[in-house]
């Protein structure tokens, strides 16, 4: 008996300490069902093994900050550039430049090379058509439509501090209305909210399931997780301008696997990789890549120009104000 116990102990310790191999570790803000599309193709194309953890953008930022003395992952893959700009300001990223990055249009990358865009996405509304019919209202086409009494307790989105999507919404509202007016507006909106999620795209499925009537999310998530899946939902945009994101990736400071990370970033910018975005109805950054039919391009919607640098830098302050005045302020 004693020998068996000792053997179990020795074996277990052995597996823990010596079972290490060279793999690339990635943190992603992409949907749990989406990231395997790219990562599996990358593994096949390069033979590099990849391990991925999925978190919402805000959680990802917090995790990278928490681990800054001992970074556990090399690449921050996906989610709005906003959060990565916030990370850059906090000194959590390291610049990366390569031929592949050079080719990306200047509007879609950091001039110093701290982050580079992968895709474009616009904020839209997802509405459950059956419930719209029941309530006798049209799908919202203005931010102010969300304040209609019929939608009371039926609107959902994520917390701006956990989700990049929701922070993009906050930033867009500030860009459209000015900061004080944007907060006044959200105070009205807060009364309509059913609940907040941690993940930005969760409200799409919830609208599809009819748990809520209207959700606020990125158009590509609405198309892929809502319309394409067969849920009774419709995608609309606010006629005042809407906000948008540059989905980005970056290299984490102190990256344990720098070379592999560089390979991944370069590969993600290739036409081969960017073509895969068709599957999630994203708009790829690479102009040579295929765009999914029906996907929402920048020229298809009225978007407000957004100063990402500003919103990245002021994230902490805006979030604090949001918590104080809106989440618990009322």
């Amino acid at each position, binding site marked *: 008996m004693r020998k068996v116990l000792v053997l179990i102990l020795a074996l277990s310790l052995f597996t823990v300490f010596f079972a290490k191999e060279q793999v690339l570790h990635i943190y992603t803000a992409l949907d749990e069902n989406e990231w395997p599309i790219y990562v599996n193709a990358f593994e096949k194309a390069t033979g590099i093994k990849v391990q991925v953890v999925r978190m919402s953008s805000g959680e990802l930022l*917090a*995790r990278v900050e928490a681990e800054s003395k001992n970074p556990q992952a090399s690449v921050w893959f996906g989610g709005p550039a906003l959060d990565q700009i916030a990370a850059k300001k906090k000194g959590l990223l390291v610049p990366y430049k390569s031929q592949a990055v050079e080719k990306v249009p200047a509007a879609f990358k950091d001039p110093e090379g701290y982050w580079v865009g992968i895709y474009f996405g616009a904020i839209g509304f997802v509405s459950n058509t059956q419930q719209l019919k029941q309530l006798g209202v049209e799908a919202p086409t203005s931010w102010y439509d969300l304040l209609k009494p019929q939608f009371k307790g039926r609107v959902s989105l994520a917390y701006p501090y956990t989700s990049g999507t929701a922070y993009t919404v906050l930033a867009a509202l500030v860009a459209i209305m000015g900061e004080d007016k944007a907060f006044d507006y959200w105070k009205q909106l807060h009364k309509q909210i059913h609940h907040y999620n941690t993940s930005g795209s969760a409200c799409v499925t919830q609208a599809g399931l009819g748990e809520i009537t209207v959700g606020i999310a990125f158009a590509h998530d609405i198309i892929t997780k809502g319309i394409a899946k067969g849920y009774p939902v419709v995608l609309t945009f606010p006629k005042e301008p809407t906000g948008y994101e540059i989905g980005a990736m970056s290299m984490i400071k102190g990256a344990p696997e720098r070379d592999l990370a560089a390979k991944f970033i370069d590969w993600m910018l290739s036409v081969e990789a960017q073509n895969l975005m068709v599957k999630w109805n994203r708009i790829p950054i690479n102009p040579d890549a295929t765009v999914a039919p029906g996907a929402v391009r920048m020229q298809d919607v009225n978007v407000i120009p957004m100063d990402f640098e500003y919103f990245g830098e002021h994230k902490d302050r805006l979030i604090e104000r949001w918590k104080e005045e809106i*989440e618990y302020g009322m």
Partner: protein
Amino acid sequence: MNWLKQTRRLINEPLLLAMIVFVWALLIVFIVYPILMVGIKSFEPKTGVYSFDVYRALFSKKYFITPIINTLKLGIVVASISVLIGYIFAYSIAKVNVPFKTFFRTVATFPIISPPFVIALAAILLFGRNGIVTRNFFGGVPPFEIYGFLGLVIVETLAYFPTAFMTLEAILISISSDLEEASLSLGSSKWRTFWRVTFPLSMPGILSAWLLVFSQSMADFGTPLILGGRYHVLSVSAYLEITGSYRISYGSGLAILLLIPTLIAFFVQRYWLSRKSYVTVTGKPSVIKVLEPNVYVKVMFTAICATLVFAVFLFYGTVLFGSFTKLWGVNHKLTLENYKFAFTYNWKYIKDTLLLASIATPLCGILGIMIAYLVGRKQFPARRLMEAFSLLTFAVPGTVVGIGYLLAFNQKPLLLTGTALIIILVFVFRELPVGVQNGVAALYQIDRSIEEASLDLGSSSNKTFWKITLPLLMPAFFNALFTAFVRSMTAISAVIFVVSGRWNLITVRILGAVGNSDLSQAAALSYVLIGIVLLAMFFLRFVTINFSYQTKIRRAMS
């Protein structure tokens, strides 16, 4: 000077001394130190600056006060309802001769061995705006708001009434029915007998069960994260403060506020109530005579039990059905796709969870038995303190343990974040009380004279341990292994703070899937987990039957 004598004796037994030092070192590094770190961090709003700022904020800002009140309110309501239901259930099984006892009991314990958020998932599938019940019986208008206080009460009650039931059943069985018979034969009615005899005797058990459920509800993380809606509780607020905003000191402060009431509940329950037990000791073996009530009463109790069991079946059945549907709420075509998905894309999570829990479980069992042996059989200074510390993680909410590990092992020399080891350590020390308690209980039942006989016959104390005590402890050991394994497989609140890219767990994945409203996927993953737990249960039964000393004796005799 008792302790002086004990210390002197210790010096003469270097092996024992080494063991005690070893255990103390582990307890201090992996239980006391992390919890202390949470406390210290809550006084350190900025690195290097110590002040009461955090607590000043916690008690002045509405966004901290609300969760504090919410948590207490939820805990009190859930504990009260659970104890009421648990008492009726236990009374039916222990005192009223209801039919299908074993069946009722087995079903009632089901929520204990399954992952806690499965019931929350079922609640959404049933009572959400698009749930089966809502759609088919209420025309799409939810009968009540499942996201929020009411939903939490229903789900947590269903999840935690088994705890109350088990505690109360043990108490009710231990109340000798002689007393009740005496009361009846002296002319009291059954109603009066219940209120004057049975109920007062079960009072300590009722309080005990109430405190246990109260702590469980306070510490619950998965359910409020899924179903809380805008009803914020401390465990979720602490989690969001840390993972959403990286305000670790505020998260720590919230965790401390969560810790205080649970610690109080634990010590009251363990060290005060256990002494006040009115268990009737008569000296002669008391036979449980079940009083045959009249038919109406019996039917009523059976109906109550059946309703509860139906609810449990309904909830678990819904999740099972959900795991085979293509797209819940829209397309209910049956498919195996979700399981295929679980075993391909999510295989890594399943594999990691199995591997880590399998490594942690034996370590936890061995350490637990070792501590139980020291505490139960040896005399040394601070023996009771060692027991208290080893049981501490029972009382400490997982959220506090998780934050503690995050803080304590994030820098040299104990840099463990991101490793498998940190998850294993969380499992080992979080489930340590299971091993200790099982071991101590078993040791009390083993008569010392058996060991003394071995010593008198010339065996060394070492040999006596390996040949006599350990084999007798084996059933308790295996039982502890099983419980620790199940609890590790289904744990969420502590480990969610220490998972990483290299090592992630299936429960975290399920929570993510629910958060993302991928309900069918979450349902399939939950059933994979339940399947593993059931397999482990059969494996345990096989092991205990084949390796227990009773079987060996039986074999030797035949």
